[in-house]
């Protein structure tokens, strides 16, 4: 029996006062690797942002972070740990050790001193994940982490996320339009269907994915 980190019950999300999706119910357990899918504008990012606001242990990595040159990968990870660093942007000795471990765990320690403008999109995505690990996130949210990535980098990032869940017990929720690769990496699927109904399942993942294409289907909430 997996330890439940967060129980979401009857959550309604919306934008500028207009509800996008209501009746959202699902559990986030330790080690879960959850794929969140749905059409553009269905409310995936809004849901992730709503979850971020629930606890400081929930860390979200947005999509499309500009790769500003003039910073090494390690400096970027430190910058991402804004609340943990002192006024000069330095981490404590303990957090520096956590940072080194995170880089090692994600397989990017060999490029720690490389300028981020020279990194591939996949490596840069992993740097963002490393900063979330240093922030000791128990639940990690990624908004379309595989967008703009080629097949090789897409699989590498998804594999890293799954290894993170299996290895350290961190729960990961990632939104994606890449249904095939995302399904392979996930242990659970959540979808905001074409009918605006939220569904989630560990057992019938394909059925839940199918709901984003079908209208007028009965609810099957977990």
């Amino acid at each position: 029996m997996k330890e439940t980190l967060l129980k979401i019950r009857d959550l309604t999300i919306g934008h500028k006062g207009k509800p996008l999706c209501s009746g959202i119910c699902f559990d986030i357990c330790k080690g879960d690797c959850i794929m969140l899918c749905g059409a553009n504008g269905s409310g995936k990012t809004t849901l992730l942002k709503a979850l971020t606001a629930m606890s400081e242990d929930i860390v979200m990595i947005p999509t499309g972070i500009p790769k500003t040159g003039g910073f090494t990968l390690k400096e970027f990870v430190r910058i991402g740990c804004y609340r943990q660093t002192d006024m000069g942007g330095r981490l404590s000795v303990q957090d520096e050790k956590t940072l080194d471990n995170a880089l090692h765990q994600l397989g990017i320690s060999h490029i720690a001193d490389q300028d981020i403008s020279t990194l591939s999109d996949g490596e840069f995505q992993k740097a963002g994940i490393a900063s979330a690990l240093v922030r000791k996130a128990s639940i990690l949210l990624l908004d379309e982490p595989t967008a703009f990535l080629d097949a090789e980098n897409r699989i590498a990032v998804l594999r890293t996320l799954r290894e993170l869940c299996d290895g350290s017990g961190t729960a990961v929720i990632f939104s994606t339009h890449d249904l095939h690769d995302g399904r392979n990496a996930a242990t659970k699927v959540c979808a905001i269907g074409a009918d605006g109904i939220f569904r989630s399942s560990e057992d019938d993942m394909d059925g839940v994915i199918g709901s984003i294409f079908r209208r007028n289907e009965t609810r099957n909430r977990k």
Partner: protein
Amino acid sequence: MKSRRNTIACISGICILAVMVIADLFCGGSADFEIMSRLRAPRTVTALLAGAALALSGAQMQSIFRNPLADPHIMGVSAGASLGAAVATMVGGPAAGSGISTALAAFIGAACSAMIILAVSRKFRHAATLLIFGIMLGFIVNAIVSILQFTTDAESLKIFYSWSAGSFSTSTWPQIFIMLGAVIIGSAIAFSSRKGLDIILFGDEFAEMAGADTSRIRLSALMSCCIMTGAATAFCGPLGFAGIVAPHIARAAFGTSAHRTVLPATLMTGAIISIGADLISQLSPAPVPIASTMALVGIPIILYILIKKPVL
């Protein structure tokens, strides 16, 4: 290897600055104490402080607007300061154009422009649109200054014309101390928010998700810009381009965008550029206004930046 590069860049910068300061102090020939303390030293110190103030303002504006061409001059903040200084000089008469009231009026003018820029900056998604807005704002403010010129007396107009050409030689020691105070306060604000200036370079969404208050970072950076630009513009005239060029040279020399390095490096580079412009003005056969020298030196570098890193 990076620390060795930083050490070399730092020592080189200090040496260049020291040579420039000595050259600027002694370029007239005579080393008479009276001439030195009353004329040359105030001029050199003014150039140093004005360059540092404008460059540090430019570095902060480039970061908060994530725009390599942002600086107080282009974004209309200097124009706002000019309007404030013009109002103080023309309405208050020649006596008002020399002290803290001018600096205060210039600060208020700069702050008004900066607040307008800040208010519209979130509406423009493209960097070029904000630049164009800043340029247009500058035109409008300069048009108001022109109207003021028509309504003032000949004496105030003469003072305003010589001020608008830019000069480091008209500052008195009390004015220099006001500028020094502005640079100290502005630098302190900038250095205290260096961590925020770093994270804002990676976008508002990333910064806010990491727990940074982007509005507060922008406000404190603009406050610092207004204090420094207001003082420099009030006493030296509307000087442009040092604010754009200096941060780029600093980043290239030190090979980093981290503000803990970029801010002090920009301060030093701005001072070097400003004293260099003053030296060129002094050594030229005919008197050349500082604003023109700055433009002649700065604009080719800006054009080079545009070609290398197009933003339009």
